[in-house]
């Protein structure tokens, strides 16, 4: 029998697995969709194909994994159970239905009206998630720095999906007369910079020290970054929404970039103090993710100064794939074995030999996957920055697809791992 608190606090394995498995399927679909993006990168900023890809990758993969991870990590970080596990299941199915409708609407001309309907369903599902998180926080007496990041991130999510809903309704039914480009940009800044980035910044303060066994570091950098990032993102959203001058937008983005620089300093400080020195697949992915973040901030800053759209695309790509994808993949190699182990092997502890978590990952495949992803992302960043939308882009996107297939292979390996295979 598992101890009562453990089962009360932790969500059921099936719940988190729902989000993780579906997220990985969307990752594969988005990698396939990416191969055909060449025309969109060299042409209009927002096309329907680009919108389909963006929703496949960001909502299908990134957000899906974050939702699953939040349900797993929130009770651990806050030392309190999630307000409602039933809400979480309802959220998953609503989110999946809404997302499929939206992507279908973006992909097939005849089904474009699915976008607003799918958008409303997705919106409702995300609001359920936000309410579940807010109600979980309501039970707490004190909130630590990680909790503050997760709370502000969730508020940004509620705000940015509301903007997204208004855009969806305006596109589908012309309900509001808005500047769609400006609202989409504010929506993206809120969702990516406000929600995704702040979640990553917050959970990094738990995951990076935990897996690297780092102690005794000063956490002032991440503390200073919190108000700075909040103000930066909020100002950036407002400056894009109200189409303020270049100066306002630049200042807002500059403040946001400064807070991310503080986060990077904090991460390298933690890694400096790590006592676990092995260079495994987790540390390789994490360090590459952080280096990609450094470069992406540099490219975005350069694009603001030089007004070069290609650099901003390259910086955005590096942020979303170099940083976010590598960060998530590295942590999937750590979190997924734990979840499977917890479900499958923890009841056997003390009765028979059980595997260690790292034995459940195919190390060689993980290393090949990491290496191929680094090469693919490096090549694609150069291709986007210097408008090389020919074979270089195609080879890079195919290599990225191969790398993602290797991630999927390892996920299958973790799920079907049997004790007799390795011990």
């Amino acid at each position, binding site marked *: 029998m598992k101890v009562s608190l453990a089962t009360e*606090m*932790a969500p059921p394995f099936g719940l988190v697995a729902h989000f993780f498995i579906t997220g990985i399927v969307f990752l594969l679909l988005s990698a396939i969709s990416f191969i055909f993006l060449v025309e969109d990168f060299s042409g209009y900023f927002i096309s329907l194909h680009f919108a389909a890809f963006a929703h496949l990758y960001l909502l299908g993969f990134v957000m899906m994994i974050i939702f699953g991870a939040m349900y797993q990590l929130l009770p651990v970080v806050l030392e309190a159970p999630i307000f409602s596990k039933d809400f979480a299941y309802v959220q998953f199915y609503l989110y999946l239905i809404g997302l499929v409708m939206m992507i279908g609407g973006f992909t097939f001309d005849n089904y474009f009206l699915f976008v607003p309907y799918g958008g409303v369903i997705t919106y409702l599902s995300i609001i359920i998630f936000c309410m579940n998180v807010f109600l979980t926080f309501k039970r707490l007496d004190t909130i630590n720095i990680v909790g503050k990041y997760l709370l502000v991130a969730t508020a940004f999510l509620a705000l940015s999906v509301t903007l997204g809903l208004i855009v969806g309704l305006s596109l589908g039914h012309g309900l509001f007369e808005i500047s769609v480009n400006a609202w989409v940009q504010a929506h993206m800044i809120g969702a990516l910079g406000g929600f995704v980035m702040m979640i990553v910044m917050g959970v990094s303060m738990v995951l990076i020290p*935990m897996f690297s*066994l780092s102690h005794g570091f000063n956490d002032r950098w991440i503390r200073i970054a919190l108000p700075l990032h909040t103000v930066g993102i909020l100002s950036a959203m407002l400056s894009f929404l109200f189409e303020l001058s270049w100066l306002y937008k630049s200042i807002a983005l500059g403040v946001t970039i400064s807070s991310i620089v503080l986060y990077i300093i904090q991460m390298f400080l933690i890694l400096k103090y790590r*006592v676990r*020195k092995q260079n495994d697949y987790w540390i390789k992915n994490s360090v590459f993710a952080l280096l990609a973040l450094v470069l992406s901030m540099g490219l975005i800053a350069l694009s603001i100064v030089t007004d070069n759209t290609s650099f901003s695309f390259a910086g955005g790509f590096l942020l979303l794939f170099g940083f976010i994808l590598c960060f998530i993949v590295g942590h999937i190699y750590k979190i997924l074995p*734990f979840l499977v182990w917890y479900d499958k092997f923890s009841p056997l502890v*003390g009765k028979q030999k059980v595997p260690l978590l790292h034995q459940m990952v195919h190390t060689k495949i993980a290393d090949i996957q990491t290496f191929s992803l680094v090469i693919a992302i490096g090549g694609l960043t150069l291709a986007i920055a210097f408008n090389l939308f020919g074979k270089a882009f195609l080879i890079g996107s195919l290599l990225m697809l191969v790398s993602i297939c290797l991630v999927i292979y390892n996920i299958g390996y973790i799920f079907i791992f049997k004790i007799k295979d390795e011990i």
Partner: protein
Amino acid sequence: MIVTQEAVYAGISTVIDPEVGFDIVSLGLIYNVIIEEANVHVKMTLSTRGCPLHELIKQWTKEAVEKVKGVQNCEIEIVWEPAWNITMASESVKKALS
């Protein structure tokens, strides 16, 4: 039957942290063991606050101690002060990690 510190520590050392692969005694997570006849009180910590294995390691430790001959009941107290650091681990753990 007299319960000894050695027997209790030997029991606890069967508990392995599946993430790092070392037993929790070698990791230096056990701060104190108090034995009062058949009752044992273990004061311990974890390498990270917010560790998902928190409750499981606590449970395994309790079960491992209660398997020691003569022990009827074991209470586990998780403390965060002093915070764990690598200097508390055994030399073999330090060497393996680096």
